[in-house]
């Protein structure tokens, strides 16, 4: 029959390290300088610790709702290590590792989740967009930045992140298609962590892989072990090269797993088994990278201990500093609505100031 030709696309998963950090794909092992390798590892550890610490604070009632990243560090650090300083980072909302690697101070990230917009001001030239909650919409922002880069011939590429659930959204489709049409320097990384809140990947789409969605846009797609930082590095590097040569966007699916809850409001035991989580814990990207570095004599137990001790203090100090920062003032929440405050809004602000203090005011 005529439709029988159209079997589903089969993709192989690209990887370099196995779960014990052994190189299984020698030929593809990237030549990354030692400093970068160590920076990758350190960022993964820092992220893990900051993330776990934030969860503790949240459980103590000192932190608001946030979206833990635990387990996905490699899928983020690999790509960022492969990128240049001028390249742009367009996150979804679970990209703490990517943002830290790219240079956002932890204090900003904590501040954002602590409920203060100042946490999204990363400074001029940072080339990072704020956390993006409305699913999928960031892909169109990324396409727009990539368009500007192409127009201005700035040589900057864009790395955008999205979740497995996000690929179902119309915004993802339009952004990827748009980037394809204009051969824009965009690399979109799908962190397939197997869930969108409670909804498993299998209910998100019938496609066997998310990487194959690239076909819809006539661009390359790659399926990668997302807990393998080297594999993520290599594939992103290749995609960035294409991007900068004007060959257009690439779609990368990183197979990974969210070890924690969706957000601190979520109870994952409702929808997944402990066994499943335990299986994935064995594939922890940090263990893998640790072993790889140890095997190459770039890392050891003593270094690890010192590092964790230093980080622990740094992270706790950072959070305490955040707790001490003043909450946004009335002026602050009004003043950025427009670049210049219109008259009527000024009056509303004055009126608000004159109003009785409410229960929430301090």
């Amino acid at each position, binding site marked *: 029959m005529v439709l029988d030709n159209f079997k589903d696309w089969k993709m192989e998963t690209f990887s370099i390290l196995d779960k014990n950090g052994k190189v299984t794909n020698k030929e593809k092992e990237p030549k990354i300088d030692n400093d970068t390798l160590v920076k990758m590892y350190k960022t993964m550890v820092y992220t893990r610790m900051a993330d776990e610490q934030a969860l503790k604070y949240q459980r103590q009632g000192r932190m608001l709702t946030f979206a833990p990243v635990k387990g996905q560090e490699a899928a983020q650090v690999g790509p960022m290590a492969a990128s240049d300083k001028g390249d742009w980072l367009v996150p979804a909302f679970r990209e703490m590792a990517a943002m830290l690697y790219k240079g956002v101070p932890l204090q900003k990230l904590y501040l954002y989740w602590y409920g203060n917009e100042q946490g999204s001001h990363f400074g001029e030239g940072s080339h990072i967009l704020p956390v993006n909650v409305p699913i999928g919409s960031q892909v169109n922002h990324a396409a727009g930045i990539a368009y500007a880069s192409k127009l201005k011939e700035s040589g900057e590429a864009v790395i955008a992140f999205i979740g497995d659930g996000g690929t179902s959204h119309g915004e993802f489709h339009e952004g990827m298609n748009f980037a394809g049409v204009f051969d824009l320097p965009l690399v979109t990384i799908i962190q397939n962590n197997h869930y969108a809140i409670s909804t498993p990947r299998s209910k998100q789409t019938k496609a066997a892989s998310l990487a194959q969605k690239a076909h819809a846009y006539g661009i390359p797609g790659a399926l990668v072990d997302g807990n393998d930082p080297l594999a993520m590095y290599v594939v992103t590097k290749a995609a960035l090269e294409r991007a900068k040569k004007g060959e257009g966007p690439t779609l990368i699916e990183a197979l990974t797993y969210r070890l924690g809850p969706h957000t601190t409001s979520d109870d994952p035991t409702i929808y997944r088994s402990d066994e499943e989580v335990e299986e994935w814990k064995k594939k922890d990207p940090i263990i893998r990278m640790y072993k790889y570095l140890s095997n190459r004599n770039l890392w050891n137990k003593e270094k690890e201990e010192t590092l964790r001790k230093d980080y622990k203090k740094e992270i706790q100090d950072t959070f305490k500093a955040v707790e001490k920062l003043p909450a946004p003032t009335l002026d602050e929440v009004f003043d950025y609505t427009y670049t210049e405050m219109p008259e009527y809004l000024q009056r509303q602000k004055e009126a608000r100031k004159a109003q009785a203090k409410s*229960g929430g005011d301090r």
Partner: protein
Amino acid sequence: MMAEMTLLKAINTALHEQMEKDDSVVVYGEDAGYEGGVFRVTAGLQKAFGEKRVFDTPISEAAILGSAVGMAVAGLRPVPEIQFSGFMFPGYNQIAVHLARMHNRSRGLYKMPITIRMPYGGGVRALEHHSESLETLFAHIPGLKLVIPSTPYDAKGLMAAAIQSDDPVIYMEPKRIYRAFKQEVPEKEYTIPLGKAKVVQKGEDITLVAWGAMMHEARKALKELDEDISVELIDPRTISPIDTDTIMESVKKTGKLLVVHEAVKTLGIGAEIISRANEEAFFRLEAPPVRLTAPDIIVPLPQGEHHHMVDKERIKQEIKKLASFEE
């Protein structure tokens, strides 16, 4: 027989009853099936009615609402959930250009018995886009109905009426009071007619109109009010079409109107209520009608959210100001 329940439980109960009663009712949305929704409003439904009538969808608001149009055309009564009202935007195209219009454009051939549920409103220290009050974006569109309950009793009866309505209904749920208090609610099914306001408390001096979580704040304010001011408290319950008659009858009596809402001021529902008061009760107004609302700014993150909120203190203050108003 009565049962004590929260507003959330009342909605859940109504969904159970309506699904039980009518096989054509289907409930779905992001995480609305297996897990029963991020707030658990749809908890237990999949177990009771199976995976075909209660299901999880991909993250696709346009598909969630657009498929509802198709389901309605084919004889179902879909009750889709939008996870938070701030995420309705990607599905707003379907709401504005199809749900609201299909009955008219097909000259009655295709009815749209669709109830779109969405939690809304602030004050819960939530993430960005989780606190919006977007009533205006529905009330401005001809062909839609918009319902907001403020008590468990109303929530259950309005949900029954919404699901049974042959017109598309947006059913906004004040998530801040999902579990704030309990109320005795009849165990058997009942409906509260859409388009009928409720006079919550009789009064002579001021007409206060509020709904959702603001009704709760208004009640608290009135309870705490020391002054001897007689406030008539009205809950429209249906925001579109709004029951102007009940409100205007009260305004004609009191001469003073205070509208309280969580949404921003400009073109919030208050603007419409005041304009209608001008059209229908102008010479009975004894003071300029007052809007107590969020200012025209973007909902701040939780640390700054109180600058955006209306609460009982602010309501008390406005009541006093209005009561003592002199030209």
